[in-house]
């Protein structure tokens, strides 16, 4: 059975790019436009991993990671931050919140699929 990846980004075009790369590698993809919508989408659903932007309206990526990690069902769900942010202090915030990896856009499909397959075991 294909694994399900939750993709969270406020850019519809970017979600489409990520979705294409991951569905091409055999993953199911569900999408949300911000952290709050992503939390609503989780709602007990079987999700193997999340790929999450940082700068988003309503609830940003770091806040989403903290909120997801506070939920027992998703405490161990790996989260990859996929963002234009490249500063070390931002990465440290992501790490402290509980993210498992940090990738800076633009990414190549191979780079993304490799990271997801490494984290989504």
């Amino acid at each position: 059975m294909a694994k399900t990846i939750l993709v969270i980004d406020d850019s519809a075009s970017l979600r489409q790019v990520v979705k294409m790369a991951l569905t091409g590698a055999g993953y199911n993809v569900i999408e949300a436009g911000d952290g709050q919508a992503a939390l609503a989408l989780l709602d007990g659903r079987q999700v193997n991993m999340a790929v999450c932007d940082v700068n988003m309206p309503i609830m940003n990526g770091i806040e989403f990671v903290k909120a997801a990690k506070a939920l027992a069902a998703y405490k161990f769900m790996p989260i990859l931050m996929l963002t234009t942010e490249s500063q070390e202090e931002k990465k440290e915030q992501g790490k402290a919140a509980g993210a498992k990896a940090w990738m800076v856009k633009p990414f190549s499909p191979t780079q993304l699929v490799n990271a997801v397959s490494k984290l989504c075991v």
Partner: protein
Amino acid sequence: MPQALDTLVDAQAAQAVLGLCAGILPVWVRQLELSRTQSEAAVTQMMQAFAGLAPQLNLLQNPAGQDMANLVPACEHAFAPALRNGDLPQDARAAIEQVLHMLRDACAGAPRSREPETAAAQALTDQIDRMYQGFQYQDRISQMIALLEADMNRLKDAIGNPSASTPQLDAWLSRLESQYAMQEQRRTHADAHDGGPDDPKETTFF
């Protein structure tokens, strides 16, 4: 001219400039927002066309059972809505046309030996990889514009509130700079055209 009159003229001139800015800034913001949303819609549409193309590309990469004669028209059909879009960025249009050109070349000689076919498929894969990365620049541009929109709105609010203290330029620019996500924004802010670090390409695992 008496000093009091000088002061009055200066104040009137300053007020006129403030009125000018208060009128212009919302228009700039709306125009920026329009260009941001239109380019986002164009790229999203292009990505959807690209998604429809993927099964056809698999045919090229896996010659068993392929129907080469149908490949080019199917791809042209998939990209047609995006190419008809007048808002499609020129770079994106050129990238699509290059892919279609490569497909036509790759399919023109079929059936043929596997070796050139494999090379063509690899070239196509590489080109598609570049397109994936090219599409993502919409996201970067959108973020840059959104930040400028927010800063213009902030300036408009500051101008529209004469009772508040006058914002200081250094503090304003420092605040703006602190909100940048990308290295090129920082370089541009500093008017530094001669390099500096690029954003890292590798993945950091924690």
